[in-house]
Structure formats: C-alpha cells, structure tokens
C-alpha cells in the first residue's frame, strides 16, 4: 500500500499527494527513509531537502524544519512556515517591550495599583453608561456626523 503525504504549515496546506512509494527526510538524528508499513513515528526534522519518490520519479522539496509523523501509511510533515529565526523574534519582542516601557515608568507601588484600578473602574462605568444610552435611544453605532 502506497503512502499518503501531507505537508502542512501553520498558515496552510502546502502539499498533498497520494500513491507515494518512498519519503526521504532530514531527521534530527540523520536522514531517514519512510517506506509503506512503517511503524508509527514522530520525529523532529532539520532544515534540509526532502525527497518524495512516486512511480520512479523523484521530487525534491526544501523543508524548513519541524516534525514528521508516520501513522497508518500516512506521512504528515508539520513544517515551520519558514526557518525559525528565534533571534529575530527575540529582537522584535524586545522592541515591543521598549515601546511600552517608554510610557510605563516602573509603577508597582500599592498606591499606583489602587489608582489604576479606580481609573479602570471609572472607565468601565462610562462604557456601561454609553452602552445603555445607545440601547435606550435605539441608536445604532455608526460614524459621527451622519
């Protein structure tokens, strides 16, 4: 029985093919070949080239890393959408923090917290009042000035 192969990323289904004879993937512990009747397997894969053999024809695909699952002659690759550049994420995360920090000056005192809570309570009340007024007058939300 031939294999069914799916490659999915968090964003979309990238590749789906039935009747595959053999899959060669860059496993974390070295290259691995999956043939029909393979035991259930879940392995991490490294960025590299994956070869899919179907009817004597080879298809090479660039893989960015992720996981490979084999189960009941179905091979699913949970691929990372792109190579995981964790440093970039860290840099962007730091930027987001700094943007926020510019406004927030180390306020952790009890008094500050109480003041913030009170301010929040007031805002909540205002929202509630606005909501009620809108319901009562039957005015539907729309742009101002119409």
């Amino acid at each position, binding site marked *: 029985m031939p294999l069914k192969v799916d490659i999915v990323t968090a*964003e979309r289904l990238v590749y789906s093919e039935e009747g595959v004879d053999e899959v060669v993937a860059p496993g974390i*512990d070295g290259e691995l070949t999956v043939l029909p009747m393979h035991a259930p397997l*879940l*392995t*991490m894969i490294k960025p590299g080239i994956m070869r899919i053999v179907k009817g004597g024809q080879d298809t090479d695909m660039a893989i960015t890393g992720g996981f490979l699952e084999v189960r009941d002659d179905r091979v699913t690759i949970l691929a990372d959408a792109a190579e995981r550049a964790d440093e970039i994420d860290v840099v962007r995360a730091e930027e987001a923090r700094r943007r926020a920090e510019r406004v927030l000056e180390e306020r952790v005192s009890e008094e500050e917290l109480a003041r913030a809570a009170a301010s929040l309570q007031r805002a909540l009340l205002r929202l509630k009042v606005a909501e009620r007024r809108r319901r009562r007058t039957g005015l539907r939300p729309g742009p101002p000035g119409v």
Partner: protein
Amino acid sequence: MAMGTLRQIRRRIRSIQSTAKITRAMELVAASKMRRAQLNALAGRPYAEKMRWVLADLAETLPLIEPEALHPLLQRREVKAMEIILVTPDRGLAGGLPSSMNRRAAQFILERGVPVRVVAAGRKGRDFMRRTGQQVVAEFIAIGDNPGYEEIRPIAQVVMQDFTAGLADEVYLIYAEYVNTVTQRPQVFKLLPVEPPAEAETARVDYIYEPGREAVLAELLPRYVERQLYGAILEAIASEQSARMVAMRNATDNANELMRDLTLVYNKARQEAITSELLDITGGVEALKGK
C-alpha cells in the same frame, strides 16, 4: 421660503450622499477582508489539529512525571501575577467591538486579586489600558489585516518569556470570537500554562519518538502556543471586519433614510416657493386691474 434655505438643503443632501458612498465602499472593503481572514483561519486548521493530536498523545504520560521535571510551559504555580494579551482592532468605525473588548478586559483585571500585566495587540486596547493607567508591558500595533505567522511569533515570545521568568503565573488571551456576521463575542482563553487537550480521537498510537519524548515535547509546546495565538488573532480580524461591515451598512442605511427625508423637505420647500411667487404675480395683476 427663501431660496437660501433651498440651497442649504440641497447642499446637505449632497454631503450626505457622499458620506453614504464612503460608508458603502468601506462596507464592501470590510466584507472582502473578512472573507480573506476566514479563509486564512481555515487554511491553518489541519496543522492545528495535528498538533493537538500529538500533544494529546504526549500528554498521556504527563501525570507520571515529577512536577519539577515538567516542561516550563506546563508548570502550574500559585497565581501571584497574571498577564493578558488583549487583541483589539487598530482602527475604529467597527461598531461596539473595540469598547466591548476593552470592557471585558477591564472586568477581567478587576475580578482578579493579583497584578495583571497587559500585552496589547492592537491600538484600541493599548490606548484604553494606557489611559486607565494599567501596566502595559509590550505593545504590538499595526498587525494588519493579513498577518503572517512570522509577525505573530514575537507576541508569543513575550508571554512565554514572562511566564518562564516567573513574571506571570498565568497568561490569558482576550480576543473577539467570531460567532457569525452579526455576532462577535469577547472570549477569554487560558494560554499558559499549556493545558494539553484530552482527546480520545488519537486512538492511542504507540509512536516511536525521535530523539525522545521529552525533546519532542519541548519543541512542540512553543509552536503550540504560537499556533493558538495565531488562530485567535485571525479570528479576531474576521470579527473586526464583520463588525465594521455591519456598522458601515447601518451607516449607509441611515444616510439613505436621511436623504429620503431631506428630499421630501426640499420638494415641499420648492413648491412653497413657487406658490408664493405665483401669489405675488397674481397679486400684482389684481392690483393693476383694480386701477
């Protein structure tokens, strides 16, 4: 009635007409953006599903592991501080959606007895939290209508860092759940610690894990958190666009109604003006006849 009023009414009608054109265009744009966001959300579903299966399978042995040996993202602690990711639109004209998101978040903060740190994803939420003096620890503005996975990951990065560093003992996600075109509901979802799904559909497969169970779990968990966040943000975008679509449709309807009323007023005023002119003329003729 004087000609001046007539001109004023005509000008008014024309300005309402152009407003209606704009709101109608915004409605159409929002509708197409909403469809796009829905398609994006659907496209990522196979990945999310698979990941849930695998995690459910991995989780079965978790109760056997010593609490200290658990992966950091799974660790449950006494809750002394929390963090929320508040997903809101950047722009207004989306009906009551931004304010109902902020209201839900405010309620959440007030209900807990512990300090809550805010990670704002969206301008409306950030502005609100800042105005009310909350602790906004990171902000992500201009995520856009069609964000890639890459753009969402830094948000997950922030909360995972804070969680593992002990700055927050629980992390919640507050976003607009898409129910249908007219209904969007603020939803609160616990993101961290990760609670592995308990699904029976995995049908218990004895996987061989390479390089090992723990290593796979350690790699999988951050991606699981990212994927959940990504899915929620796509849903929030669909919600935002559909809220905007409905708001703009209402605005267009209101404008059209107003235009109808004003046209009536205009015609009436025009007829009155004609009548009074006629009266003037006939009055003049009568007066001349009398001589």
